[in-house]
């Protein structure tokens, strides 16, 4: 998926200016990090991409389509092209790991044979194939985050977004998670990871967008 932000601004009704004059271009198959202090606008930027929020000014173009021109009824279809990993992973504890990961496929109406195959493939990729019957509550923090990743990638999204995916994990686990994102990027998925773990980002050697008070203050490779 190819994403272009053109002078995008977001002002909340409270008057708070979350983003201002944000412009960047994420190529198809690119991987980038989004960094900055908390409150710099990272989450707002991700929400605009997912159409949870709408920008106040500027244009967001996804694969040639202006998101402002996209009607409300198309929002679900837009979101199906995007896999999202949350810091607090947003897993549902009333069902098994398998059912959590199956959710994005169930929503599209896939049949159960196909769901089984793809859920197991996704769990295999994150190394949790043996734990599909567990309740996510019984898993460690790192494992829960990997279930979240499996759910994000299970329907082969064109864009993978992650909001502080390593926020609660120790450095070793964080590195594993980042490597996973890199592997998905290698098979052609566009990846954007919001993180303030600068040391880890530095080791990954990808493009870094730095936000400060809603503005992009740095866009380039990390050195």
């Amino acid at each position: 998926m190819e994403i272009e932000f053109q002078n995008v601004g977001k002002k909340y009704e409270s008057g708070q200016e979350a983003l201002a004059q944000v412009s960047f271009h994420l190529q198809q198959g690119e991987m980038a990090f989004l960094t900055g202090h908390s409150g710099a606008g990272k989450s707002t930027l991700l929400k605009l991409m997912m159409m949870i929020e709408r920008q106040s000014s500027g244009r967001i173009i996804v694969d040639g389509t202006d998101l402002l021109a996209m009607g409300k009824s198309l929002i679900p279809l837009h979101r199906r092209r995007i896999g999202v990993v949350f810091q607090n992973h947003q897993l549902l504890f009333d069902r098994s790991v398998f059912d959590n990961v199956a959710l994005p496929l169930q929503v599209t109406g896939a049949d159960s044979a196909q769901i089984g195959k793809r859920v197991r493939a996704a769990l295999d990729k994150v190394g949790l194939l043996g734990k599909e019957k567990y309740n996510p509550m019984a898993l460690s923090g790192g494992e829960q985050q990997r279930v979240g990743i499996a759910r994000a990638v299970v329907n082969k999204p064109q864009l993978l977004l992650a909001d502080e995916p390593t926020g609660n994990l120790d450095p070793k686990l964080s590195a594993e998670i980042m490597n996973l994102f890199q592997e998905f990027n290698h098979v052609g998925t566009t990846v954007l990871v919001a993180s303030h773990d600068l040391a880890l980002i530095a080791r990954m050697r990808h493009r870094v967008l730095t936000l400060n008070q809603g503005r992009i203050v740095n866009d380039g490779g990390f050195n």
Partner: protein
Amino acid sequence: MYKRSSSVNQKGATRQNVTLKNSKKTRIKANVTSSFVMSLFFRQHREIFLKSLSRLLVSPLSSFMTLMVIAVALSLPGGLYVMLKNVQSVTSQWEQQSIISLYLFAELEDTEALALSHELSARSDVESVSYVSKEEGLRSFEQVSGYEHILSSLPENPLPIVLKVTPTQGVSLSSLDVLERQRVALEALNAVEYAELDAQWLQRLASFLNFGRQFVYALSLLLIVAVFLIVGNTIRSAVESRRDEITVMKMIGATDGYIRRPFLYMGLWFGILGGSIAILFIIAVSYWVGSSAADLIDLYHSNFELVFLSFKEFFMCLLVSSAIGVIGSWIAVNQHIAAIDLQ
């Protein structure tokens, strides 16, 4: 690690080729896809139909309470309806000879009155006509009223000639309209000053039954509104307890229709089960009351039989209650799903 995913991709690619090859046979392809979509549609609905039932069983006590409230609220108008039906059926059996009294104009001659009497008794809708002359009227009036002295002091007999017409049609609740039309027609005759149908008690009963019917309708309306509110409130708390799930579903691209569906089925289940229990209530109460009513009927040596709800009425009851369930949850779900914001 990627072998699996690439093999899946290849399969996807072959499937695309196949569709491409078949694209010439568009009609067949269209049929295949539409039947695929239909089977998908039915499969999803069947799954959710059963899943939503199992959701009711997750909190059996509160579901049971809700069902009972719905059932009681529905069985009240249903029971009143059965009662009304019985009262109507018992009263429709009451039939007796009726009389339409024609008060003729005072200046009319006896011969003219007699001629009219013969003419009327020849009609097919008239059984017989009895002629009450002014003198006969005076005599019977004296006997009944006890006003002999006042009447005898009058210079002349003030009473008109009366023709007592017995219609072929007996009077009952169902024939009341026919007889009323006949009375109006007789009153329109030149010689007749005033015609009176002797069925006042039946007219009172008819308007009383009419009042009863209106009362049942008004009460039913109120109770149906109550069921709407109960279903709405139950669905609202069900949506609330699934807030996390709905948030995640919205995030991963579930349509509002997909999110709404299990709650609509939940409403449908409340409607079907609540309606069924209401029917059981009505049957139970009917038999309970019916046995004591049968004793009463025996005392009067009546050949009246109690009527219960017909199969068609049971079906209507279920239909109405399921419709209330679905519509009630539709309203609640639309309000509350929209209120769940992704933040």
